[in-house]
């Protein structure tokens, strides 16, 4: 389960809409409790470093930027608890590529954008055996 505020969600949708028709991505920073429940404290938009011609279908975050984001979060007493990205002109459902590159525990929020409008979103969590994603309950607080 992941908890986030209306403002977090609006910020994610706004990022997805403004980067359309490219995919966008960003981090969910917050707390993780012992039961594996996450609560978002901050969203952090990241730059999509995939090659321009593939950005409609791909998002790639520079690992170094990620390492620095992780370090900054730790300094604030936060952790990366998940990651959001958009699917321009596609469902808010993870692809095989998403599964191949996923980590357990993290929340994967996917926003479907059509004609520059965020029309749907879901949060997903990967099974520990890497076999599939399950839809995760998201609570708007």
């Amino acid at each position, binding site marked *: 389960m992941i908890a986030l505020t209306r403002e977090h969600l609006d910020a994610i949708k706004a990022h997805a809409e403004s980067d359309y028709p490219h*995919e966008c991505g960003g981090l969910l920073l917050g707390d993780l409790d012992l039961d594996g429940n996450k609560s978002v404290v901050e969203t952090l938009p990241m730059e999509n470093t995939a090659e321009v011609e593939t950005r409609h279908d791909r998002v790639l975050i520079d690992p170094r930027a990620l*390492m620095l984001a992780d370090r900054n979060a730790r300094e604030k007493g936060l952790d990366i608890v998940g*990651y959001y990205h958009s699917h321009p002109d596609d469902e808010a459902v993870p*692809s095989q*590529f998403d599964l191949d590159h996923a980590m357990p525990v*993290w929340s994967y929020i996917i926003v479907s954008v059509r004609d520059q409008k965020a029309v749907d979103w879901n949060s997903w969590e990967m099974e520990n055996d890497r076999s599939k994603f399950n839809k995760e309950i998201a609570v708007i607080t």
Partner: protein
Amino acid sequence: MAITILIPTPLRQFTGGKSEVAVEATNVSEALDALTEEFTPLRKHLYTEQNSLRNFINLYVGDEDIRYLDGAETKLSDGETLTIVPSIAGGNTAAEAKAADESPTLTTEEYQRYSRHLILPEVGLEGQRKLKNARVLTIGTGGLGSPLGLYLAAAGVGTLGIVDFDVVDQSNLQRQIIHGTKDVGRPKIESAKERLLDVNPNVNVEGFEMALTSENALELFKDFDVVVDGTDNFQTRYLVNDAAVLTGKPNVYGSIFRFEGQASVFWAEKGACYRCLYPEPPPPGLVPSCAEGGVLGVLSGIVGTIQANEVLKAILGAEGILLNRLLLFDAWTMKFRELKLRKNPNCELCGENATIKELVDYDAFCGLNALVEDELPYEEITATELNNWLNSQSDVQIIDVREQHEYDFARIPGATLIPLNQIVNRICEIPKGKTTVVQCKGGVRSAKAIGYLQDAGFTGRLVNLKGGITAWSNEVDPTLPKY
């Protein structure tokens, strides 16, 4: 050394919730071993089943990515921090379809067919899928194109484009092993395609029955990953090189003559191109073609398979390809030599201030148009016309400027042999009062001979036999052996 490993949230469930783990290690590899020994289930998230680090796991020693240090062997000093950072990448299902296209899987039949490749770590499943995904264009299905095509097809290159406009000739069979005796008279594209599909029906063979020209080369090249030059003339060789540079493709080059072969990989993005080596072609006629000078058949097999080898390595991303190296091979002395090439910073095509931005007229560039456009500096007749002359006139003599061994096995009745290199010294043997028809195998050496005679002040009437003794055999006397 006491090392602190920073654990990302997704992996803390395997470390009992710890965000930092302390281990003793002297390098990265030892640190990860210590970590996964203590927390065994962690291993499968960090390593693949083949025991290599998952490609989406990034490791930082301090601020530095270990990829830019010494990888897993990167040394750690006391008190240092090792940060595990999972990559973040996402993609929608449209990319999926494309990605599936990009790396095709192998069928059960293909696993068996390519098993000798699959057990080579340098190729393996990943490499074989790269080969299957690759598109290679071979220019010409002749001496070089034959072994090249056969081995690339056998190796499992997914798409082979072949360009040729020629028809299989009896004289091709001595070296062009993709074609058989039954194929004589067929378009080369057709017989090559049939043979390639017999070798490997999994290969998608795209045949282009046309001459490669300045008009079609760029369009054709852009759809392929690697271009292979199996041509036999300078115009096409420069055309292939220029089009490859302009479209950013590697050009795997090979050439053969008599007993000597050359091979290299011209790849402007990574090294020298053909123009860095030879900015300009030799004057027309200086370097004879294989049709005039001959070629040892097996030499084309050796050079063509060297090209095939380099094509596969370019696709597999292997190191040690023939970049910036010109390989010279002499089949008669059985010696290989190698010349170092350097990218020419002033190369007009691939240098920093390149001036060539598009394809040009390669016949003109190689000095061939002059002969076609201007009037020939000598008279010419066809074999049929010569035959009529011989039957009706008595003041016609034929001078054959080929070599003795060629004359020995085929000659036009009544022809006098004076090899090209002796023609000037033996000028007095040619009576001036008669019409002199000069003849060789195909008409090139005889044209040269006429020029020499004219320059030496010969005043009689000189006429070149167009197409040489080959034309005579075609038009007048089919019993005369063609060679």
